């Protein structure tokens, strides 16, 4: 990474108690690529004061991570930073690599998004913590070990002594993120850059980690740069907000002002796209449920359920992932299956899609028993159901064009060929709002949202009676998620397929589902009409889930947080 700056020394305020600790002035980042230079950000100017949380929000590619990471030289080698970034009045962009290393992890520390992979798998937690202490504070081995234990206690890890000897894979995701945070605050940094620190975590764990960050800010007076796309997290933790769009800051200000009275249209659009618990209430009644799917096999008196699971049990060796789940999806109905990671919801989805044999229990799809059917006999039945996965990047064959991907199920089932096939593919692409020009593109040429549209078109190619959607929007930006959800709702109403919609996001489920089932530890703890379960939950776990999901309104979120702490 190289840096150039036109002028120097100006604007570095005399360090006072409330003077900005980290100051970005007209920072721009460019990357050298094969096709010339690409500007990632430009004109980034904002301050961070001690004990202040500044949230940098924006969608993927907006340059929010790049801006923050440029301060400590963690950009790829091709990056080039102009402008000025000062830490306590000291210019960071002028530091050579050796001096920069003594800033990293010491004055400015980073917490990354993925706790699962942020820790080195082959070293113990204690070793990784002690490494920072020994490097920056010159501690002896025993002193570092004692301090590491204290740090683990500080971040709320139970039985810190044992955790020191543990390897990362022996800890849960939340505990790993606590370790990463412990490592970041080890040298009492002036600034903590938290890059999507809770995105990969369950809501209840997220709430705990946000509490921990707030607590550390209060206790250590660390300034926090919080990079996130989640407006709920912003409302929960931030004092000020910087909104980025296409590499530039479009708005910045106090969190209350930005979230409740956004000045820039982009901010307003971003906020409107966020699914908001309690906002979608009342959607269900206006949905007259279609009596049956599209008239495919004539009117029947009592159409069979699109999906019916009875006493489903799935065991992996000695582990019971699913313990006796029964559920029913009526034709034309959307059942939201919610739960946190490890609750068994995806396993239920895989059984429902006949991708996995249950240990016991039965699976009926459109009235037919598919439990334990061999693949050969299952194949013709696969017309009736299909699945949309979370990550469209990996669920489409990278060597198949969009058109071929969508046509494949039609070819496999010999539904049509030749001109009829081409027509049907065009029709399907059109139904997911992709132009016919997309047909010859390959998945890597599409955006995440476009890829997911292709997955949906492909899943609907055979007009299934049941669609299983496993977190279909969790990998997408909020504004894209909003589009995909709209599209999905529209298609579902038009085509009338039954849908098992699996998600960890209660607000998304509220938007779509007629009924909701809440899973925990392999069991359904509560189910019922969406408005009832999400509005007046019976089960304490559902209540805890609802309370933990942050809402993008600082005042409401504060009230919720206090209520949660009290209850």
């Amino acid at each position, binding site marked *: 990474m190289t840096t150039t700056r036109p002028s120097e020394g100006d604007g570095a305020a005399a360090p006072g108690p409330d003077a900005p600790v980290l100051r970005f002035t007209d920072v721009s980042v460019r990357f050298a690529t094969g096709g010339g230079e690409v500007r990632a950000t430009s004109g980034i100017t904002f301050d961070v004061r001690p004990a202040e949380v500044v949230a940098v929000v924006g969608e993927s590619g907006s340059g929010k991570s790049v801006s923050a990471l440029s301060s*400590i030289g*963690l950009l790829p080698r091709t990056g080039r930073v102009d402008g000025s970034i000062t830490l306590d009045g000291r210019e960071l962009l002028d530091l050579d690599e050796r001096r920069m*290393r*003594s*800033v*990293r*992890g*010491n004055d400015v*520390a*980073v917490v*990354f998004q*993925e706790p699962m*992979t*942020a*820790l*080195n*798998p*082959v*070293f113990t937690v204690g070793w990784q913590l002690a*490494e*920072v202490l020994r*490097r*920056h504070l010159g501690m002896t081995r025993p002193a570092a070990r004692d301090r590491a234990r204290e740090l683990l206690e500080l971040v709320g890890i139970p039985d810190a002594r044992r955790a020191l000897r543990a*390897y990362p*894979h022996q800890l849960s995701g939340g505990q790993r993120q606590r370790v*990463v945070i412990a*490592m970041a605050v080890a040298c009492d940094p002036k600034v903590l850059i938290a890059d999507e620190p809770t995105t990969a975590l369950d809501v209840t764990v997220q709430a705990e980690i946000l509490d921990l960050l707030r607590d550390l800010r209060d206790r250590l007076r660390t300034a926090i740069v919080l990079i996130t796309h989640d407006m709920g997290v912003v409302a929960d933790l931030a004092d000020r907000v910087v909104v980025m769009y296409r590499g530039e800051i479009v708005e910045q200000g106090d969190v209350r002002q930005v979230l409740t009275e956004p000045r820039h249209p982009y901010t307003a659009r971003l906020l409107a796209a966020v699914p908001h618990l309690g906002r979608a209430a009342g959607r269900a009644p206006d949905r007259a449920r279609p009596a049956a799917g599209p008239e495919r096999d004539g009117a029947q008196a009592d159409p069979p359920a699109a999906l019916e699971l009875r006493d489903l049990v799935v065991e*992996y*060796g*000695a*582990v019971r992932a699913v313990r006796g789940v029964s559920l029913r999806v009526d034709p034309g109905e959307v059942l939201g299956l919610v739960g946190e990671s490890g609750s068994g919801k995806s396993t239920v989805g895989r059984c429902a899609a006949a991708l996995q044999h249950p240990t016991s229990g039965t699976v009926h799809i459109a009235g037919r028993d598919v439990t334990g059917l061999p693949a050969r006999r299952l194949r013709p039945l696969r017309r009736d159901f299909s699945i949309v996965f979370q990550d469209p990047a990996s669920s489409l064959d990278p060597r198949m064009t969009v058109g071929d991907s969508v046509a494949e199920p039609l070819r496999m089932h010999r539904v049509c060929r030749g001109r009829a096939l081409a027509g049907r593919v065009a029709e399907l692409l059109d139904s997911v709002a992709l132009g016919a020009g997309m047909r010859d593109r390959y998945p890597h040429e599409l955006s995440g949202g476009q890829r997911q549209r292709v997955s949906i078109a492909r899943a609907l190619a055979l007009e299934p009676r049941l669609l299983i959607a496993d977190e279909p929007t969790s990998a997408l930006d909020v504004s894209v998620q909003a589009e995909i959800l709209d599209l999905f709702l529209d298609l579902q109403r038009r085509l009338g397929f039954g849908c098992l919609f699996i998600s960890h996001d209660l607000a998304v489920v509220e938007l779509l589902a007629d009924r909701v089932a809440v899973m925990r530890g392999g069991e359904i703890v509560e189910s019922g009409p969406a408005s009832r379960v999400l509005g007046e939950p019976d089960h304490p776990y559902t209540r805890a889930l609802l309370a933990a999901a942050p809402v993008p309104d600082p005042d409401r979120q504060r009230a919720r947080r206090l209520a949660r702490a009290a209850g």
Partner: protein
Amino acid sequence: MGRYLLGRLAQSVLTLLLVSVVVFAGVRAMPGDPALLLAGDDPDPATVAGIRERLGLDQPLPVQYLLWLARMARLDFGESVRTGLPVADTIWTRIPVTLELAALSLLVAALIGIATGVVAAVRQGRPADWAANSAALLGMSIPNFWMGLMGVLLFAVVLGWLPASGFVPLTESPAGNLASMVMPATVLGTGLAAVIMRQTRSSMIEVLGADYVRTARAKGMPPHRVVLVHALRNSLITVLTILGLQLGGLISGAVVTEQIFVLPGFGRLMVESVFTRDFPVIQAAVMVTAAGYILVNLAVDLLYSVVDPRIRVRSAPSGRGAERGAR
């Protein structure tokens, strides 16, 4: 761990049994009657019949196989047709030479291969990477025998630094032993080093892009520590697999190398016995080689768990475990 080890041992025994069937069948399918060979130039039918009976060759094949297997299990490999000496003794005198050659070659290969692989990965796409890749391609393309001959020409004939051939036992003179081994080990090791370099490079590049390497950098660790401590150990996991699998190449390479440098090793023994149809020796040599191969790969599997704590046996099998196992 105990259960895992038992399972792996059972698997190894099964593999060895399969090898024994193949070896036995192969040797019996070869043209030539061992009894006739043993009986000498002018065999009289009674003598041949006597030898047949003594060797058990008059029995049905399955019985012969089982008898042979039973003797193998007691490490009784019979006697050499050519020399009349017990095969076991011959093998025991030859094995140390080849083991030393293999160990030194592996050392050379690992040192060169891992070092250049790391450099190439760190300098990916730059001249050092390019040079290392070209050298590796060269190392893989040059046949051992040619490299051996060139080595002899340069170091023994022109410079006179090292002996051209022959073997000095370690017990006789450690310095002489090393001198006689340097060239063979280097020749045999460089070909293998090329493979290791490629593997180290690709797994290192993958690991250098990992989140935990970024974490190490964000912690302010100096580059050498990031690469050699945080990244290298993670990339060694795949390199280890290659080391185990390359042992086969090492053994066949040893056959050629021992010929060139006239080392009285296992490889030479195999070549000699094939030429003289010394069946008991061939059988025993192949069985010992197979056993060695299996043992080394078992050791590699156990080493994984030393290098990677995630592979250390867990109480409950989980989906992730299965995933890793499949790698």
